[in-house]
């Protein structure tokens, strides 16, 4: 797949930052509003896929190394599991939400009932959302990129 026309490229460049911000917002507010790591990650990955379609897989492959993607994906998954294991270390059991009630980060316990959403709540859940978000962004984008690249080589043969 080669790049598309100049109009498409320009529009893509304009829209791309907004899609990124929207996706990152969904990841960051996963514990307050509908959404979370996977949903936001899918939004960001589809934004990246839009770049891929507009500029072509060869250009994108030149910018991003496949190996770096797989390492970033591993880091996302490792962060998730380490957060779960930290629950075993600091708390009592695996997946224990050990940050709730602490004063470090995301530590506030909101009062019961309908309250104003405060991002500084929910303990390890936002951190896990970040880890999952990283993994999903890189994973989904990697899948689309490699598929596009593989099917492109067939065309030119």
């Amino acid at each position, binding site marked *: 797949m080669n790049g598309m026309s100049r109009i498409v490229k320009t529009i893509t460049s304009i829209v791309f930052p907004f899609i990124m911000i929207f996706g990152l917002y969904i990841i960051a507010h996963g514990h307050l509003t509908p959404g979370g790591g996977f949903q936001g990650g899918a939004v960001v990955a589809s934004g990246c896929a839009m770049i891929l379609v507009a500029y072509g897989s060869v250009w994108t492959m030149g910018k991003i190394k496949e190996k770096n993607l797989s*390492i970033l994906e*591993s880091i996302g998954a490792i962060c998730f*599991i*380490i957060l779960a*294991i930290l629950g075993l270390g600091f708390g009592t*059991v*695996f*997946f224990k939400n050990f940050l709730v009630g602490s004063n470090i980060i995301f530590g506030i316990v909101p009062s019961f009932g309908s309250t104003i959403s405060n991002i500084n709540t929910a303990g390890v859940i936002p951190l896990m959302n970040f880890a999952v978000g990283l993994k999903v962004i890189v994973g989904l984008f990697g899948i689309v990129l490699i598929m596009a690249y593989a099917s492109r080589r067939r065309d030119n043969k």
Partner: protein
Amino acid sequence: MNFVDFLLQHSPALIVAIPLLGAFLTPLVSRINNKVRNIFVIIILLITTSIVLLLALDVFAGNIHTYIFGAKDLTLPVVRILFEVDAMSAFMAIIGSILLLVSVIYSWSFIEENSGLDKYYTLVLLLAAGMFGMMLTGDMFNFFVFLEITSIASCALIAFWTNKGKAVEAAFKYIVISSLAALFVLFAIALLYGQYNALNIAVLGSVIQFSYLDKIALVLLVAALAMKAGIVPMHMWLPDAYGRAPASVTIILVGATQASLYGVFRVCFTLYGNTINLSPTSIGWIIVLLGVITMLIGVSMALIQSDFKRLIAFSAVAEIGFIFLGIGTGLTLFANNQMFGLIGSTAMSGGIFHIINDSLDVGLLFLVAGAVYYATKETSLDKMGGLARNMKYTTIFFIIGLLAISGIPPMNGFASKLLIYESTFQLNPILAIVAILSSIMLLAVFVKVFHSVFLGPAQPKFKDVKEVPKTMLFAMGIIASIIIIFGLFPDLVINNIVEPAVNALINYSEYIRQVIPTFTGGF
């Protein structure tokens, strides 16, 4: 609290978490060096195996472990995700860990020359996490998730040799079948959830009514899991997948298939255990009949194969039939206390003992087939011959596997098959006759293979064939020695490992009482 107690208390979570962590560390570790990566994977699986053994020792002593994620205590009504490990789960986990460990040792030389090995090891560890999760979980939805992890990882591993078209085709067949099966499982789980508002196996087992919808859910669960276990009307994916995957992957796939079998037994005995009086014998007889058909079709298809690994794959189908026959006989008599004591418990011991024997025997034969392929790059039986002169250790391992799979006395297959013959003969003589017949046909099949591969005139093109590397011999040696030990001391194994597993399946009320202490029911 000392370290061993800590490890024991958290072992159910660690058995799944350590392979998962290892899987994602593998791409990072493999940047250093290939040898470091191989050692890393083996160490991860050694740690997992030792935790499995530690847990199993405690579970076989009579304790059922429940592990609740995210909280210290269980809140009622049960909303937490929990793992519940009884003797049956621990028994299956031991099988899984042996097969995984042998597989990675074997892989060291077997697939050394391939590219993309860091992904191979990542997938192996993911498959390990999925398999252990299926065996240890106490939650139906969790079971579905681990089922999908297992099938995705094993599908990617079947297609590992992507330069061969047949391997990719087999993988596609496998993923279609297993995603269909998993969706049926999810549909059945939704049916149960809609009625009882619970996902926990123990909670569902305590309230299940055997209503019309429950019957549909039971049919869907048993059919889908039997499809994944390779029972005959739905077995067509299994020979392709086993035959086309690398041998080091096939042996893990045997373990993954056993995990689906475990799912069938968990559903029949624990989830629907309380309603067994309402459905007297029909489901048991269906399982018995499926087992008999599986044995017959498996061996008769094995007779006509000319590809080494496909032939072993069909005999693996037949072996699963023996397990179904044994356990189905037990299930048929489950409601009848007196008859169960006489026949049923023997049949179930035979069936469960045969799970471990089957995975060891079939696994050893697949490793031998892989070794022959490694040395000669040939899989067709018609083109091989006279390899015993060049590969004497491999030949010895093949003879051990041959004797074990056809149930000849000094090997482990004999003990479990004898238990199955004895008990099924008292239920219905025809069943035992069919079982003995298929066992004899298996012997015939493998004697034919032995003759055409290892004996006969030496082929000029195999003059330079050498014995396979030491790590592969070592991996085969581990399984062969376990086979011989189990064959020489079957009573030791039955009393210490198999009997607790049988009792765990029968006493479903114990399993339920771990979560709901007030449950009164069962025997």
